[in-house]
């Protein structure tokens, strides 16, 4: 099992829970969409999984390890198995596109000779092969999104989390990115994509969860529509 939540709650302030009694499991190779209105707690839900926040109650396991009360020292290796595409990109402004993408490898202590070609290839693949030395502030929103995507994929993670990955790109690129997640999922990575784009969700016909008022509900499997995301 990749992720499991048992009666998980998350409160930013005492008494006010933004996530309530969340029960959820994600098996290896599963693909889930996460939908819900703004402020429903989608980002908080993902933050719990990528270990940016700690649940205030309940039990949570990640890659089979109980992380609810885990020692801090045990978290970095788990975080390295997760690739995150953040809603606001979170690129480091003083690093180039190449350096931003290579960051997880550098942090993991991988020799530059080993990952240099992979990083270059990924950036080529997202169409930024000519902008390896570009700083984030010189990139457009879509380009930043693609750098963030390449960074999330460079370490070949077991779990990919994407928070509104199509929010800053045109519909065509959005479709390509979503299809990419589906392809990565086919290769074995578990994927959770939080999105507002219900059209894309329907087009891909994947299992969907809905967060509303801090509570998680399974949505009925959408009938796969023919159209935009072919």
């Amino acid at each position: 099992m990749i992720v499991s939540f048992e009666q998980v709650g998350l409160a930013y302030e005492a008494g006010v829970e933004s996530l309530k009694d969340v029960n959820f499991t994600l098996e290896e190779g599963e693909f889930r969409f996460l939908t819900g209105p703004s402020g429903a707690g989608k980002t908080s839900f993902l933050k719990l999984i990528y270990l940016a926040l700690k649940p205030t109650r309940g039990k949570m396991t990640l890659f089979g390890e109980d992380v609810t009360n885990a020692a801090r020292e045990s978290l970095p290796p788990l975080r390295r198995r997760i690739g995150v595409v953040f809603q606001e990109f979170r690129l480091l402004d003083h690093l180039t596109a190449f350096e931003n993408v290579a960051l997880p490898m550098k942090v993991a202590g991988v020799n530059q000779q080993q990952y240099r070609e992979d990083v270059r290839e990924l950036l080529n693949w997202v169409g930024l092969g000519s902008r390896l030395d570009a700083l984030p502030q010189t990139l457009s929103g879509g380009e930043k999104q693609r750098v963030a995507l390449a960074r999330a994929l460079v370490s070949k993670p077991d779990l990919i989390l994407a928070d509104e990955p199509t929010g800053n790109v045109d519909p065509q690129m959005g479709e390509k990115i979503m299809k990419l997640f589906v392809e990565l999922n086919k290769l074995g990575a578990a994927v959770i994509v939080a999105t507002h784009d219900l059209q894309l969700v329907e087009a891909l016909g994947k299992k969907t969860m809905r967060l509303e008022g801090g509570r998680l509900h399974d949505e009925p499997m959408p009938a796969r529509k023919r159209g935009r995301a072919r």
Partner: protein
Amino acid sequence: MSSVSGIEGSIGETKPDGPVAEKRGRRGQDPLLPRFSRSPLLPEAGAGGAPLTAVIAVISSLACLALAAALVIASAADAWTTELRSSLTVQVKGVDAAEIAQRVEAAQAILSNAPGVIDFEVLSSKEAGKLLEPWLGKGNADSLNVPALIELKLSEEGRKNIAALSRQLESVAPGLSLDDHGGWNDRLASAARSGQALTFAIFALIMGAASAISIFAARAGLSANAEVVSLLHLVGATDGFIADQVQRRFTIIGLRGSIIGLAAALFMLSLFAMATRARGADGFLLPGLTIGPGLALPLLAVPIAICLVTAVAARQTVLQTLRDTY
């Protein structure tokens, strides 16, 4: 594409590789390697940069001056006490000038053959009396039978045999008094020890200030780089990895600042040494103040010490601060 993701095709809009391939071809090497190696993961602004370098330079300069003062005091005290320890003053008394002269002559005969006596100089009763003329008036000291003085230079062996020498001299010149300058020597040594302790205390305080500044700067740096640190954590960085980055940064800043400080201190010391020599005071007040290896080499340890203090203080601060995060 792609061996990285294993997925065919590309989501990119632009044709990959062209400009990069051209660049690589032109330079004959991959331009990415040095580019990435140069970039620190923590940006300059947060971790200190120029202001911290300037503060470290001032601190280093003060530390060098304090250490130089300690070394000069030690050197001067050593010179003074060695000088005093190797000399001895003998007062030869008598009922009249003739007796004093006779006893001096007998003492001279003993001293000429005594082991450990390197040299001696006699100041006769008359000459000693002349030294009192400024206070007693011309010719007034003649009737006082001022004792004759014999100034001895002793070797280390001679110092050990002072008692025996004293007994020999006493046999030919009864009632002589022998002054080994012990009182002066003790007072000088005590003053030198106090001076050294004071300068070392100042040196330690300065090192403490360097440490405090590093702690403050490391906290400020972490705070200013909270987003970077958070992202590093999220991509799997350990506390040790982040502390390494900060430590590396502070080592560079510490080294840069302390070398500037050392250069400034050496410049100031050179000016002081030149000024001392120009006033003709060299060899009297501060005999050790020459910018030679004896002074410069210990001062070279100051940048290393400051680097260590700043780097270790910054690392411990970072580790302590990160411990409080998730």
